[in-house]
């Protein structure tokens, strides 16, 4: 079933339009052969496709692996995750130390590739899911070898060390100071909740009231990834080869990312942060690499903000199924994930 707004084309159809598109972009002398089309990580936001293209530049045969991301228009976080913005962020990151895929083309016209899309470099590496046993075993073994924990920490430090003004990232919006960053985030997720059509719950009203009342002053602004954890980074030979999922980035408090690394939500049955980094190593290496002191009080605040964000995610997801935009039953199931997120918030608020 093709839900309203969903991207069109099956494997063969997409390969066909990609061939035409790349022939024009690459200025190929003749047709571009597309092979190995594979849709990966049946994600909740954008579609991700991997493929290889072979073409002639008139003199020699050229061959390159690409990654295509398409916005089906009916996915989770569609409001927060514009592909045009992602493309711009990736272009801004190219001259920086942040390991990120090189973005080649952004195609906003849904008629061309079936949906707005980005074509980018296919970075070598793998991205084991930390929510599966095999993934957790992978990270445990990598932690024992010792290279990935340092690389994972360094990649986050690289994000926070970006001179975001020089990189042109101020288009993301710059908080005005004081508590503006936290208040902006609260407002963003509150808007998503309102849009979801979910009836909500008084615990959410309590959580939002508490967050507004205790919003911390942001002393230092950096580029913030917004979802930095294993599962959102590509790993090659035990090193982070690319930070992925540039969907929630903002200019804000670096502790927002640090809190996400520290949270128990992103590790299961292990003391290793994000399933891979010993806490002591993370603190020492991150602080040394960034010159930023980790503020545990602010991290605790942001963990409550993540509880609100989780509730907003699940409300939005459940709403997508309820309003008929998306027929994926995983979204329908999240109706009850809202309850779990709110229970966690209640516990963290002390009741």
């Amino acid at each position: 079933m093709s839900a309203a707004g969903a991207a069109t084309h099956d494997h063969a159809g997409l390969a066909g339009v990609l061939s035409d598109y790349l022939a024009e972009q690459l200025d190929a002398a003749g047709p571009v052969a597309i092979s190995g089309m594979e849709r990966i990580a049946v994600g909740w936001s954008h579609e991700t496709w991997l493929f290889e293209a072979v073409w002639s530049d008139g003199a020699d045969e050229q061959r390159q692996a690409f990654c295509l991301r398409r916005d089906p228009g009916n996915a989770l976080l569609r409001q927060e995750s514009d592909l045009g913005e992602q493309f711009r962020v990736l272009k801004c990151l190219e001259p920086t130390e942040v390991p990120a895929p090189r973005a080649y083309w952004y195609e906003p016209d849904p008629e061309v590739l079936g949906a707005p899309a980005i074509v980018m470099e296919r970075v070598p590496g793998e991205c084991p899911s930390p929510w599966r046993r095999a993934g957790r075993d992978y990270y445990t073994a990598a932690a024992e070898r010792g290279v990935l924990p340092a690389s994972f920490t360094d990649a986050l430090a690289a994000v926070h060390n970006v001179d975001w003004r020089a990189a042109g990232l101020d288009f993301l919006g710059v908080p005005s100071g004081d508590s503006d960053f936290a208040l902006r985030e609260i407002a963003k997720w509150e808007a998503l909740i309102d849009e979801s059509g979910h009836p909500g719950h008084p615990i959410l009203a309590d959580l939002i009231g508490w967050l507004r009342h205790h919003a911390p002053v942001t002393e230092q602004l950096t580029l913030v990834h917004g979802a930095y954890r294993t599962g959102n980074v590509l790993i090659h030979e035990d090193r982070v080869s690319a930070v992925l999922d540039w969907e929630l980035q903002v200019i804000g408090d670096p502790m927002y990312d640090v809190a996400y690394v520290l949270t128990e939500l992103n590790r299961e049955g292990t003391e290793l942060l994000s399933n891979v980094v010993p806490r002591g190593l993370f603190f020492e290496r991150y602080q040394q690499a960034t010159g930023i002191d980790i503020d545990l009080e602010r991290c605790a605040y942001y963990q409550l903000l993540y509880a609100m964000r989780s509730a907003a995610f699940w409300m939005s997801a459940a709403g997508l199924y309820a309003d008929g935009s998306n027929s994926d039953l995983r979204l329908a199931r999240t109706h009850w994930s809202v309850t779990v997120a709110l229970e966690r918030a209640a516990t963290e608020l002390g009741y």
Partner: protein
Amino acid sequence: MTADDHELLSRLADTVRNQIAPAVDDEYARTQAFMASVILQRLAKQSQFADEHRAAETADIAALADQLDAAFAQADAAGETEAAVPEDLRDAVTRMRQRSSIAAASEVITALYGWDPSHPVARAALAAVRGVLRRDIDRRMEIAQ
């Protein structure tokens, strides 16, 4: 829904999980079938607990409204509040009582934060509301897990 509804939904969930899903070859469709089973199971529990939870919610809201009204009256009588309990808070409690719904506690909470959440009367009121919300979310977790 009735007890029969609960049993029917539960049986449907079992059928989808144990007979239909395993017979589906396509991975995506199979996963969707398992999801359908999980959802049916949740709906079965929702149906099973509906009357019990509704009764508990009604009793909790009535008791909470009594407790808050009494606390506000006591504060008025003692004249111990630097600022009077705001009218919008009193009105929110009245509406919560009338609607007899946990959802209506949101308005009470918003009014409490809009007043002064550090005020002793507001703090005590918020603690009372939270006690009711704790019981409510625990009931909901019986279904969600």
